[in-house]
């Protein structure tokens, strides 16, 4: 529903007009099943817990060790490669974060997709941006937010026709998809 992505990716939108027509490589906007329960195993000293993790880098804070994907959504590209977004729960840190896996990255220089991640206070309220960007901009992980919030990660297809929406909803197909609120 919202478009925080506009400022960041406006250049990409313009480039699509001359380059991307007919070359969009996404073959399906429907999330497809992926293996469940992916667990990060890299071990680093934990430096935060709960709300002290808010805004922290999950890797630097040592929170990715043992983290579990609690929600995932993905799309298989025309190359056969899979782009996915996921929300991870870090038991060690009591916090969550989003992760972007752009398997198609090497084929996607002109109109790279972006991930936007949001959170909502525990008992409701407006979604607020956690992180947003493309892997060309080196976004792999979002910063963290305490686990008691609701968190979702969205995949924004910048080559889609029509306006970009960094928080695509099911009523507006074409601009991307999100995980469940988790």
């Amino acid at each position, binding site marked *: 529903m919202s478009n925080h992505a506009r400022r960041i990716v406006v250049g990409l939108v313009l480039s699509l007009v001359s380059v991307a027509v007919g070359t969009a490589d996404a073959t399906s906007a429907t999330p497809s099943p992926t293996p469940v329960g992916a667990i990060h195993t890299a071990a680093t000293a934990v430096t935060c817990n709960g709300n002290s993790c808010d805004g922290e880098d999950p890797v630097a804070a040592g929170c990715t060790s043992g983290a579990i994907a609690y929600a995932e959504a993905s799309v298989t590209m025309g190359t056969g490669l899979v782009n996915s977004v996921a929300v991870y729960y870090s038991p060690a840190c009591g916090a969550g974060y989003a992760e972007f896996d752009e398997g198609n990255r090497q084929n996607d220089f002109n109109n790279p997709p972006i991930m936007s991640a949001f959170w909502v206070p525990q008992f409701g309220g407006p979604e607020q941006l956690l992180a947003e960007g493309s892997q060309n901009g080196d976004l792999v992980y979002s910063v963290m937010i305490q686990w008691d919030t609701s968190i979702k990660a969205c995949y924004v297809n910048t080559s889609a026709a029509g306006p970009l929406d960094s928080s695509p909803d099911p009523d507006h197909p074409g601009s991307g998809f999100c995980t469940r609120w*988790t």
Partner: protein
Amino acid sequence: MMRTPWRHLIRVGRASVCGLLAAAATTALALPALAAPAAPPSPPPGQAAFADPDATLGPGWRQSSDTVVTGVGDTEGFHIYVAAEKNAFRWSALATLGGSSDMGTWTGYTCVTGSGHYVAAVYAPTMAVNKPNLLSAGALAAVVDIRTGQVRDVAAGVALSYFNPSCGTGDRVLFTRYLNPDRRDLEQTDLLTVDAATGAMAATRRVGTELTTPVPGADGDYGIARGALVRVDPTGALTTVAKPTGQPFAVHATASGIDVVSARGDQAVAQRYTSGHLVDLGTGPRDRLQLFGLPGGQDALVGDVRGITKAAGMRTIASDQSVEAVSEQGHLLVQHLVARQTSQSVRSGGTPVLASDAGRIDVTVKAVRDNATSAGTVTATAPVRPHVVTNSVVAGPHPLDSPPADLRSPACAVPRNNINRQVLQPSPNQVEWATDMAVQGMLTVARPANYSQAGEPAYTPQGMFPAPTNVRVPAQVMLGILAQESNMAQASWHAVPGDAGNPLVADYYGNGNVAIDSIDYSAADCGYGIAQVTDGMRATDTSLQPTQQVAIATDYAANIAAGLQILADKWEQLQINQTTANNNDPSKIENWWFAVWGYNSGVYPNDGSNGGNYGVGWLNNPANPIYPSSRDYFLRDPGNNDAAHPADWSYEEKVMGWIENPQLDDTTPKYSQPIFHDGTNHMVLPDPKKRVFCFPSVNNCDPSVAKGSDPCPDEDSRCWWHGNATFADCIDGQCSTEWLAYTTGGTSEPTLIRTYGTSCGLYTAPSGERMLMIDDMNDPSVNLLGCPGQARAGKFTLEAGYPTGDGYSTVDGLGENSCFFSYYGQVDLHQLGAGYLGHMWFSHVYGSDTTTGCEVDTTKPTPQRNVHQVVGTWIPTLTTAGRYQIMAHLPSHGADTPDAAYQIITNPAPNGNPPTCHVNQETNGADTWVSLGTYQLSPGAQVQLSNIVGPDSTAEADGTVDIAWDAMAFINVPASSAVACGTRG
């Protein structure tokens, strides 16, 4: 008494007669040729229908088109009911307007248009009568097609007044709105004209004075202004056409002229304006002559009509008592019509009335033909039609498509739905104790640190809000105010005594508590709690410390202490103004008349401002023609339904009524009456029939009813009252004094009398299996019922709006728009101190229809009803997959949807629709665990429950059926285990 006589109109019955006749004919054809035709089937009994209509209504009743239509309010909304003679006057529901409100019951007025096809309604939460701005311009207006039940919203922000709406000879309906009802040079009336056939706003005229009792006549619109019958031209300019005799309280336009009934002393004078002149039609007793408009350009005078001359188009119907409504052809008088919840509020008091009694009305009718009566209970309801704010007729709250710039900052200091701002609903014995202690300066009960789990330091109510030193307030004055202001509730009406709930906040969202699809914080009232304290309770106010604001919102005793200060301050301001009642002895309850008046609408200082006018305002002057001059004392006649239409009385009249007639529990008063003067059971109060607060040299007000039809034609600040008024001889012992039920014990709070028991037992897995418990908040011990905590093994979250969380950005110019639905979704979300370990959340069930309009991209569907979506999610902390039996807790009350659809998402990336367990949340008053089934769950599994059930046409989807989110247990069971969805226990 007489009230709102011409608004309860009638209509011509229509097509359904054909259905009955056709059925009869079919039956006859099926019989042997020589058999006598079978009698038509009688309507089913009940719903207040006449049991023997052949005898009571006469042989032609089956073919009659006589019908009556009228409205009644309760907590579910404002119901429009219809009863047709061809159905033996069996009552049924036509429509329900409004919906759930934090503030309790609804009230309103209706009229039927001249064609008989439409009923117009003005309705609002009853609390609006305590808020001058809402009373003047805070009600909603709708038109309902009587033939189909179709509802059209036509306006917001209209006056709640006995003459609003007004119908006439055609389908034009007039609605009234008052602007600045107390201010000199600013007094204005908006007159809104609606075509009932289309629902379109035909015109809005601004009249430069107070216009009352407007009527749409065949040759133009009329009304009463500055004491005269005036004609209102298309620009809003007024032309005086006649001077009625006395003060008009009923006006109706007929095809033959404008009929006016006025109060003159103890008489009611009926006159007709026709051919440029007023013609006398006769007189009757002031409280026994009522004027009702009828379709077809006619009307009816009902009551003691012996002195009335026959006139064209006017029926006269004799009645030995005042009535609520009359049927179109005069075959039926509605003597008594009151919502069960309203009669409970008078009879049983306390808070709240039972939600389960919504839609039940008690009816007594009389057949004019033979004076036979029929009494019964009507239980029919119609689907609630919440007001939808639309188009340019809206005034006040912002519509959805133009949200205010900043919804992130509520205007009121203490928020809703904050688990650290729960409020325990007191029982009436506690309220009287706190009041008695407060007036004696003894309310020093210790409130320890973190009282009400609010995280605030320790205090005592009158340590924080010291007892007044300037005056000793009689306890019953404060108790009467508490009854009128809040029905003695500190928490939202959703909480019964012993429950916790959100704070009771008047108009938290600035939508008048009427349009749950709108938010305008700039218009928020921020009246908190039992005494509806507003001073210092806005977020930007600095006159109170945050700890004081929290105490006012969460603690009834602190709220009473603060309210007492405000009342004493009004007394003081009036002393400075030398505005006094009787002998000014504060121990006499009658002498608090002006202070009570000021508690509601303020006291204007004598400082040279406002043109030198000062004292108490015009809005609450009993002589103001916005109150029917035919009324009697509020609540004094138990046969009347005064509490159903409290807007007929000024604020202080209502408070004094509640002092005389305390709310009862069966026969036991919930608070004490005062000590009346010898041999009476009432106080000596200003006679509503007399203009006690009128004196030419004081407020330009003519005290002589016989001389003028409007006592203060200016209707503005020149009508403000100051000085002494004597209406009771307190020196000679006519006046009443307080009675204290509690004289000691200010540090010892009485026991809370709970409506429901508490459910504090910890749930364990039936066979001792490993269990992951997720309650509806992180620390279940944060409850006000004294329940223990329990370790959690997951998280519970709520998301609101559609899509959930919507509200991140504003219009972005790229075809997408945030509609702020996450904010609107909070409006009908509530926390309640009930359910497992003393806390739960609930909302109401809605449909999912969409429309276009919110989005800049107008091709994109925009949620219509599901703007109120609330989704609760339980996520167990799982690190490995396993088999789990899922058990959901259903609270003993606050949950009654028959179809709560729990979705079980078993893994992080589900493919296809997840399994769903449909549960009836009704538990017949017992806390209950129910199985959602047994599933193989992976890390990331979750259970979700939404309050959106399907299309708007779905049964139960009208916003009145409760749906709850409470605790969830995930029991790790063996692979072979299987417990079916819906299994209880």
